């Protein structure tokens, strides 16, 4: 096609410059008439089916009966359209021919794939569909893009639109995966959801009674303390992290220099250390603590205590205070980074205006810079909050069943713990057996919590942004 049109162009250019210019201006040499290009609807439809089939294959771990037929069908549809266009206009698309070749090879290859790749025979990950479905997705998208371009008339604008399938596919796959997981959690979680579960705390005595009587667990044990615990951990760790985080961010953005570099580097290092490692280190410290557990103040603050009904104080594995402090270590760098970015995005004009009016650093920061950076700081807090509520790893070390309540020096307990312990049996067998039916409900509650926070902060962010930045920038 290219060679042909180039020779044509050369010929026309030699004949008359005006005609040559006209040909250049619209790129009409490759444009196909409307009635002819409608034939590309066929490969487009087949490619859409191919994408759907690829996704179905991706989800199922069955042997794939559709890969070979799908590849062949795609090749045939594209071949038909290409031949039709060739007959009408005597132009052949080389990329279409290459695509048809690829499809034919793939069809053959998927047919010849060894039978033992079927199902789960090799291992849990590699099955035949794990090879053919990504291939089917990619080639279907290529056919989809090609036919879309031809269908829209092969203009430069159509070329831009033909990129959309490539852009949409990954998003669609992610949404599909997320949707499947979410669907699973919602269905299983709603099953166990009840008002009792939300309002009642886990009571070991009731559970013990049921165990000795060998009866079903009734009344339903509750997740109240885990819900409240999640919220408390969130509030405490954010309030611990907010001030150092914002302060470090302001310093890094406003007073660049050697000290700021040191701060920035150390925050990055803190960020690189996994919460799990920090948790392990802190837990080993608890194990090495001397003195009678639960008696002295340090032990109470660090381990946390729980009081029995007879007033006996029992040591826990870790207090809310300790865990929120650890989480704050990881959360502060996020807040610092976002604060720094927000301050750096303040327009130079506003900064200069404030300085030129004789405002000191503090005043400018309070009245102009921090309000401007507000939405960014809020985003930092949101990301931090999401990390806190998902700080599953650290919970394994410290959390308890929360049977005696929630408070700064109580033993820490969160929804993460309920998901983990009730499913895998940590935190004592009683809790695990009693709460096992509800671990998906705990997961659902955690999702609702995170989602609620996201929506709330998005709304706040928009309001704050409009107030602090006005029409100067769209957020």
């Amino acid at each position, binding site marked *: 096609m290219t060679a042909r049109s180039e020779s044509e162009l050369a010929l026309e250019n030699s004949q008359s410059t005006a005609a040559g210019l006209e040909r250049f201006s619209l790129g009409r040499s490759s444009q196909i008439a409307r009635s002819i290009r409608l034939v590309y609807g066929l490969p487009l439809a087949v490619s859409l089916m191919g994408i759907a089939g690829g996704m179905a294959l991706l989800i199922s771990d069955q042997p794939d009966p559709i890969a070979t037929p799908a590849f062949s069908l795609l090749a045939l549809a594209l071949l038909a359209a290409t031949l039709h266009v060739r007959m009408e206009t005597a132009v052949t698309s080389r990329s279409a021919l290459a695509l048809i070749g690829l499809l034919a090879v793939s069809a053959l290859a998927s047919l010849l794939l060894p039978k033992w790749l079927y199902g789960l025979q090799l291992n849990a990950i590699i099955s035949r569909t794990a090879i053919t479905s990504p291939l089917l997705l990619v080639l279907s998208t290529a056919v989809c893009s090609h036919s879309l371009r031809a269908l829209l008339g092969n203009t430069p604008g159509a070329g831009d639109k033909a990129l959309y399938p490539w852009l949409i596919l990954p998003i669609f796959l992610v949404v599909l995966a997320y949707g499947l997981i979410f669907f699973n959690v919602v269905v299983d979680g709603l099953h166990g959801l009840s008002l009792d579960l939300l309002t009642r705390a886990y009571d070991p005595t009731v559970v013990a009674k049921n165990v000795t009587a060998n009866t079903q667990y009734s009344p339903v044990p509750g997740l109240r303390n885990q819900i409240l615990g999640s919220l408390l951990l969130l509030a405490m760790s954010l309030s611990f992290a907010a001030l150092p985080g914002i302060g470090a961010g302001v310093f890094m953005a406003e007073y660049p220099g050697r000290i700021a570099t040191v701060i920035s580097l150390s925050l990055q290092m803190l960020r690189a250390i996994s919460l799990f490692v920090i948790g392990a280190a802190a837990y080993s410290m608890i194990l090495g603590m001397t003195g009678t557990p639960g008696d002295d103040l340090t032990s109470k603050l660090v381990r946390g205590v729980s009081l029995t009904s007879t007033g006996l104080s029992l040591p826990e594995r870790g207090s809310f205070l300790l865990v929120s402090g650890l989480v704050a270590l990881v959360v502060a760098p996020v807040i610092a980074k976002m604060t720094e970015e927000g301050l750096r995005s303040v*327009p130079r*004009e*506003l*900064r*200069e*205006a*404030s*300085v*030129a*009016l*004789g*405002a*000191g650093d503090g*005043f*400018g920061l309070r*009245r*102009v810079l921090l*309000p*401007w950076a507000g939405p960014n700081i809020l985003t930092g807090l949101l990301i931090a909050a999401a990390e806190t509520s998902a700080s599953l790893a650290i919970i394994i070390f410290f959390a308890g069943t929360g049977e005696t309540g929630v408070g700064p020096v109580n033993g820490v307990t969160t929804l993460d713990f309920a998901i983990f312990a009730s499913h895998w049996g940590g935190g004592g067998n009683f809790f695990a057996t009693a709460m096992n039916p509800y671990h998906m409900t705990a997961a659902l509650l955690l999702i609702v919590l995170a989602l609620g926070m996201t929506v709330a902060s998005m709304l706040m962010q928009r309001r704050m942004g409009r*107030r*602090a*930045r*006005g*029409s*100067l920038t769209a957020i």
Partner: protein
Amino acid sequence: MTESFENQWLRRSDAGGVAVQDVPAALGLRKEPTPTNVMETQSLQLWYSGRQVLKGVSVPVVQGKVTAIVGPSGCGKTTLLRSLNRLTDLSRNCRIEGKILLDGEDCMAMDPVALRRRVGMVFQRPNPFPMSIRENVLYGVRAQKRKKARFDEIVEASLRKAVIWDEVKDRLDESALNLSGGQQQRICIARTLAVSPEVVLMDEPAASLDPRSTAKLEESVMAMRGEYTVVAVTHELSQARRISENLVFIYEGHIVEFGETKQLFEDPREEATRDYLSGGLVTSIEEEEAAS
């Protein structure tokens, strides 16, 4: 400033154009009394990351007059203006030699925030804060921790001086960002006047405005004559002719000529000034660039 802000304000607005600028002299604070030059630079040299922008500039700023700085693009006029209130401090790779004096005091030895409280600035592009009109005008007043009692008066007087009071008096609590560019720029002038600085610097204040807004802006600059000392950078010669009383012509970091605007336009001493003011220099520069 030892005199209270209120007194100063009152005297200035009541005196009807007779500026009270000699407080430091009256109190014996001034080292070398220079009765008419409220500010001056003495062989000022300035480098941006090793490149010399100002090459020994000595300019007087005469009290109560509008001084315009003109010159071709890139000649250092904006840099000169920004060095007068040490906004050049904000860029880290800027080095200054020579002296800048405000009422005989060395500006480079002063606290920069204190200096900027005495030397205000209006920028090339209108840059109101994303706040209400009232808060914009009061920003500097609040920043300088002046007494609350006269806030309303200050707002009104400043907006009147910037010739925008009638346009915004009914919507002082609306965001300043809702105003047009020209109105925003006059808000910025009002904001600068609200803290009654000794000198007002203006960096091509009409550069981003349409002709109508420019006329309004010039009107407000004219209204400041006598009462305020103004230094304005402009690349528009007709504007310099209209608003200024003194004119500084800078070319490639040097002062070519300084004098009264009228005299400079009618009978310049230097050949280069004559060329530039009549538009000839522009062509000669273009020829030079074409040759190189």
